[in-house]
């Protein structure tokens, strides 16, 4: 059944890694969609209606049916538009892809943010250590593959866009030397490969405005100390 392209909408905010995940998936599948920029300081009725539980972006709407949570959305996109598969077909490989994507959300996302955006030094150090440990697991998992998905990028790569694009921004702002080619040679090489992939490149937000926004947040955090 062909999916109706006129009725695909994505609610997001520019600069969100989670929204970016969905955009990469849509670009990979060549799906046209309407993008709605949300103002998180003044959430629209639409957002509150479509994601009443978490009230967050991204929310994906297909034929008026809403789906929140970036990784759930990416799996839905993969099941609905079947070309250029994002998940492998083998059940065990699928389980592994889901495992590592969840790992990124559970063990990398929060820790990496707090490794920079925490006022308390001890707390910050703890998060730096946790981030380091988590990235080490991913370094080991990647081995000598071009992407986590193999020759082509897949679910884990998409989930890891946070590492490839956002972590370097945080660490530049915070003066942190965490994700470097010395510390993680394979993962670092992967990140360069990934952000330069044509599909990903077109889906990433412009770096300067994201940097400026995140730097302002960092400065207001230090100022409140």
């Amino acid at each position: 059944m062909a999916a109706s392209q006129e009725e695909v909408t994505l609610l997001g905010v520019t600069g969100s890694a989670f929204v970016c995940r969905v955009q990469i998936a849509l670009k990979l599948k060549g799906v046209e969609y309407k993008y709605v920029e949300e103002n998180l300081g003044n959430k629209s009725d639409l957002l509150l209606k479509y994601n009443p539980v978490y009230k967050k972006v991204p929310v994906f709407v297909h034929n008026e049916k809403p789906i929140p949570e970036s990784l759930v959305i990416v799996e839905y996109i993969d099941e609905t538009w079947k070309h250029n598969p994002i998940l492998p077909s083998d059940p065990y490989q699928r389980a592994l892809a889901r495992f590592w994507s969840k790992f990124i959300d559970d063990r990398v996302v929060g820790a990496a943010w707090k490794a920079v955006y925490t006022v308390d030094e001890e707390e910050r150090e703890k998060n730096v250590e946790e981030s380091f440990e988590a990235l080490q697991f991913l370094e080991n998992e990647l081995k000598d593959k071009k992407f986590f998905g193999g020759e082509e990028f897949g679910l884990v790569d998409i989930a890891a866009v946070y590492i490839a694009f956002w972590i370097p921004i945080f660490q530049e702002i915070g003066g942190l030397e965490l994700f470097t080619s010395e510390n993680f040679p394979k993962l670092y090489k992967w990140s360069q490969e990934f952000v330069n992939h044509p599909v990903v490149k077109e889906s990433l937000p412009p770096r300067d405005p994201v940097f400026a926004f995140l730097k302002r947040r960092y400065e207001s955090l230090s100022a409140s100390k």
Partner: protein
Amino acid sequence: MGSQNVKLLSFLLSPIGHRVEWALKLKGVDYEYIEEDIFNKSNLLLKLNPVHKKVPVLVHNQKPIAESLIILEYIDQTWKQYPLLSQHPYQRALARFWGTVADKIAKTSWVAMCCSGDEQENNVKEAREVMDKIEEEIKGKKFFGGDNIGYLDLAFGWIPYWLPVWEEVGSMQIVDPLRHSAISAWITNFLTHPVIKDSLPPRDKMLVYSHRRKAEFSSTPRG
């Protein structure tokens, strides 16, 4: 096919481990159960789940899989009888979304049990707000899965039997029978299901365990 060589490493009192046991039992899959002492983790666990060092871990044909909801999807794809998830992508997406909610609120409720004062109050409030949303989801349905127990019923399976223990230990209330009448009806349906009711751990052990964990939580310095 595939029923040989299935092992489950789990902990008797874990609601998360039970999700996997229920799934295997509903599908009639034979498995070897290996009990893990979570206070004294075995080399086997550390080998099978080096990343998180947690149960449950399913091992099928020597390949380990961790994370209960991911295990449920693997089980559903491997053994096709008694499907746990719908064939329709949108229904699957909704089930997966609510699965993330189930995990989040299980954690919130557990933490609420462990802490006290304002911190407990905030966690209880958050859990109750989500319960209101869950109430809307289950209204008019026998199970989240429809006529039969499905993925989401298993994901929420901690509510009927574990949550009341946590509420008692934490002196708190998250599910309100008056406010959450549809959830309460579902609880009865769930607990009386033949597969579920014969596979629940002893309540007295759950109370002892929960009290122990609550005491540890209070005595551990938290950053």
